């Protein structure tokens, strides 16, 4: 904050142009933002470099920055001695199914909210709205009891079903579908198409940007989800990546630094790749729906 206020004062007052919208006149902003950026990404760089260091090098004091003898042993151990292929598969299966479920179910209800007039719409909407505020902790215990009554503890069903359709997606899709002109939908009706047909053939193709946003955000949320998978999975073969990593990091592997850093890489890298590829949708989705939710 201090940096923001100091420099402009040094300039002659009243010269509007120098204050607004002229990047070349304020290199200090780049410097400040650059330092901030270095601080923000240092942990990632350190994780990446550390994951290819040997155990001995990670314990060295003072610490080394650049790996002396880069090695992939940590990753090799993750994927052979530990069951990371299984955790990875679990994470992918859960995230993909949850994402597909949200894409389909949320846009269906979103369409109904945005374009159809039906009995009970107002209270259903309020109900969905209310659940946006309920923290996961509140439903944790009874949800576990529910899942255990259904015999789904430690199964993919238990991991997936509670997240298959979330209120967030409904709002996102409703918001977007409201922007689609009624004429297009009416044209479909005049042609004699039923609501499902209109939804599938007219509305969904127009929703691609919103679906991309919802898809990536849901995938991120599912991939990083920790509390529920931790509670509902009881044997290693059902662990997702964050659960496995967290339990290793506090369990018997807690001092195997290289292994844990390599594990973090396996959790983080796929999501960062996805984020870099689709970052426009992520940031946009958050900025818009975040403000409206």
């Amino acid at each position, binding site marked *: 904050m201090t940096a923001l206020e100091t420099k402009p004062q040094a300039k002659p007052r009243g010269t509007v142009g120098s204050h607004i919208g002229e990047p070349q006149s304020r290199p200090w902003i780049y410097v400040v933002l650059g330092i901030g950026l270095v601080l923000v990404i240092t942990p990632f760089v350190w994780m990446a470099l550390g994951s290819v260091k040997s155990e001995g090098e990670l314990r060295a004091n003072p610490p080394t920055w650049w790996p002396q003898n880069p090695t992939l042993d940590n990753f090799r151990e993750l994927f052979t001695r530990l069951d990371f292929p299984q955790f990875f598969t679990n994470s992918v299966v859960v995230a993909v199914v949850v994402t597909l479920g949200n894409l389909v179910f949320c846009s269906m209800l979103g369409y109904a909210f945005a374009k159809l007039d039906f009995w009970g719409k107002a209270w259903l909407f309020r109900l969905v709205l209310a659940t946006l505020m309920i923290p996961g902790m509140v439903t944790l215990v009874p949800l*576990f009891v529910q899942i255990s009554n259904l015999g789904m503890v430690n199964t993919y069903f238990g991991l997936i079903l509670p997240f298959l359709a979330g209120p967030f997606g409904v709002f996102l899709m409703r918001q977007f579908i409201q922007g689609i002109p009624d004429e297009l939908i009416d044209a479909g009706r005049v042609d004699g198409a039923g609501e499902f047909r209109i939804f599938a053939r007219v509305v969904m193709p127009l929703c691609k940007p919103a679906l991309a946003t919802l898809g990536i955000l849901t995938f991120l949320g599912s991939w990083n989800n920790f509390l529920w998978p931790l509670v509902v999975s009881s044997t290693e073969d059902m662990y997702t990546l*964050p659960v496995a990593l967290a339990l290793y990091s506090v369990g018997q592997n807690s001092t195997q630094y290289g292994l844990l850093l390599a594990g973090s890489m396996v959790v983080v890298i796929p999501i960062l790749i996805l984020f870099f590829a689709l970052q426009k949708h992520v940031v946009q989705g958050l900025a818009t729906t975040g403000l409206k939710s």
Partner: protein
Amino acid sequence: MSTTLTSGSGVQAPGAADQAAPRVRRSSPLRRRRSIAAWGMAAPFVVLFLVFTAWPVVSSLFMSVTDIKSKDLQNPFAVNFVGLENFTTVLADPTFRKAATNTLYFVVVGVPLTMVVALAIAVALNTGITKLSGFFRIGYYMPVVTSIVAVAVVWRFLLRPENGLINEVLSWVGITGPDWLGSTTWAMPSLIAMAVWRSLGTLVVIFLAGLQSVPKALHEAAALDGATAWQRLRRITIPTIRPTMLFAGVITGIGFLQFFEEPFVMTQGGPLNSTLSVAYLVYNTFGFGNYGVAAAMSYVLFAAVVVLTIIQFKVFGERDDATGQKKRWFRRQGGAV
């Protein structure tokens, strides 16, 4: 496409589901057919919602007034009604009080800190940076999309006392850093630092969106009158984006109230419960099989979230005509932020 998404330009109160004007007369056969079609579309969501959200919420309320334990899952008839006993037990429990104090500490220090840093970055990104703006935004956003568990593992190593990166850097300037996570004084600030680092990106994006609503002409006029950048930030920018700031504060607050992964991975709530959060205690209590007590505890947490949410709704409701009474209310609230 982005224009369609952002056309609401900023904060918009939710509600008004009935915007799609009823173009069909009431109770006509066509209307009925469409009503059925609509419910058909709502059905998958509604079923999942009833089974995995609505019912658990209702039953957690029942659980919180019973002595249900994990062993009662096989024998539901052994459960007794205990009234508000769980709540009185929880509120009188020193461990819970410790956890509540820690959570409050985390929220009260962490939220304003995140907001100040994020606002500084957003303002910097918004004033005159065109070339690398997207690049910076992606960089600051990176921690948001990554798993808290993974970054907590990494931060645990950064914070190690002997050869952690942070103490190493401190030693360059002659400071001997403490055993961050092993100290009752420093463990919580360390977790807060990580939470700020992780949550920055979200708020930067939200603030950047909010800053678009600040009229450029006002800035230009004020600059002509000799107002400094700091004065313009205080008198123009912040008052204009106050609703955005309050909103950002509320969502960050709700998130921070439930912090769990950080102590789970980094400190296991220690040392001496100094980083035990309410959410972590709920998880532990649940783990010990005291379902009734855990449910009661989670409702106390819920109450805190509701209070924050009520504030949010008040703010949204009063956004459009912030005159007189309401304006003063705004100023008071804004002052706290």
